[in-house]
């Protein structure tokens, strides 16, 4: 693939991420998984670790693209970016106390060490997001559906209302009601 084509492909992929193009995202997800699975299995992880780390990295990439924190460069493809994030996440896991004592990492690559202060803030925020994810996971299906359509699919309220054969105000009220329920659920999760 020529550099120009490569860049064009990157831009197309970024559009797919931004527009939640399920077919393109699925293709990208499936085609990049194996490489990361191999990395994790080689470095004292199992299949469940591989899936978990890969999905976390994928979510990070998705968020960074949507927040314009990633801009394509000729030499750095989206696949490389995903791989690097997954690798860093796995190294952090391996380095954490749970793994430090028992397992040895077999990587030739060294990693840039993050500022410890920043890391704590990021970790704290990650924990809060995980808690929100857990609460959302267990929310009732109608609320889940509505909030997903609005925040994830980024559909307009009036379009959602048309689909549900409701007026926009009812949908807006329902969304607020669902959000209150979700917030309640987040606060009812006990701190680990």
């Amino acid at each position, binding site marked *: 693939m020529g550099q120009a084509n490569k860049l064009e492909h990157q831009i197309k992929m970024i559009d797919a991420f931004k527009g939640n193009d*399920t077919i393109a*995202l*699925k293709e990208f*997800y*499936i085609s990049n*998984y194996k490489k990361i699975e191999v990395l994790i299995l080689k470095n004292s992880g199992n299949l469940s670790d591989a*899936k978990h780390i890969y*999905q976390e990295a*994928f*979510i990070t990439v*998705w*968020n960074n693209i949507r927040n314009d924190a990633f801009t394509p460069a000729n030499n750095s493809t989206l696949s490389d970016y995903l791989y690097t994030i997954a690798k860093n996440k796995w190294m952090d896991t391996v380095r954490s106390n749970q793994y430090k004592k028992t397992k040895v990492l077999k990587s030739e690559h060294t990693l840039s060490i993050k500022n410890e202060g920043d890391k704590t803030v990021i970790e704290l*925020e990650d924990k*809060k*997001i*995980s*808690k*929100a*994810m857990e*609460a*959302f*996971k267990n929310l009732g299906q109608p609320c889940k559906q509505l*909030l*997903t359509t609005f*925040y*994830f699919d980024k559909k307009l309220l009036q379009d959602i209302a048309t689909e549900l054969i409701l007026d926009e105000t009812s949908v*807006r*009220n329902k969304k*607020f009601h669902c*959000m*209150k329920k*979700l*917030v*309640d659920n*987040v*606060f009812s999760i006990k701190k680990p």
Partner: protein
Amino acid sequence: MKDNSNISQEIFEAIERYINGTMEPSELKDFKDYLKIDAEFKSQVKDYRIIIQGVKNQSLKEELNTFHDEIIKSEIPKAALKKARYLFISKIAAMAAIIVAIGSIWFFSSSPNQKIYANYFKPYPGLTATMSDTENLDFYDAMVYYKQKKYDLAIEKWQVLSNKKPDNDTLNYFLGIAYMANKNVDKAIPLLQKTIETSHSGFSFIYDAYYYLGLAYLKEGDINLAKKYLTLSNTNISKEIILELPN
């Protein structure tokens, strides 16, 4: 994180617009100003941002799980095929090993005498029916079974007759060779022995009786007795066997 559930719908929607980046410039300016002066409100906005992020991440994660199922689905047939092929190969290997094992057990365990016995022992062909009285009918019924290689049934029938006439050389001879044909040499030996001992002069099967008794002792590993009876048999085939036996 503080409990934000008492928030009004109006304020919540303003925060939401701010987070989603859909605020009009004038509203955005006011909102930002308010964030600067109210730390508590700022933290509340931050919490909402995190919760909305959680909704997005979990929605994506659930979609990724369906993608992941496809990776697993596409791997199962490959793994199953690999396993099936492995099983097939290992079955063949196991069969080959068993064949080699049985073959070598047979080859190494069978003494030269056993081999000679296996080479020479052929069941006596049997007789054709020519008699007509009842007892003889039973005798030839058994002979039919014998010729059909149904040795168990032949033995059963001959045994009934033999119980009535325990010293009948012909009956004992056929019972003996039936047991031999049925791979029961232990039972054949006393019967053949008795045949020889009780045989009347001119007994038509005497040389055959010696021959089979010789073979039976060969099978039992008693070379001396085998030689003795084979010599008594005095047939060309007996002489041939004797030459093959160790001195």
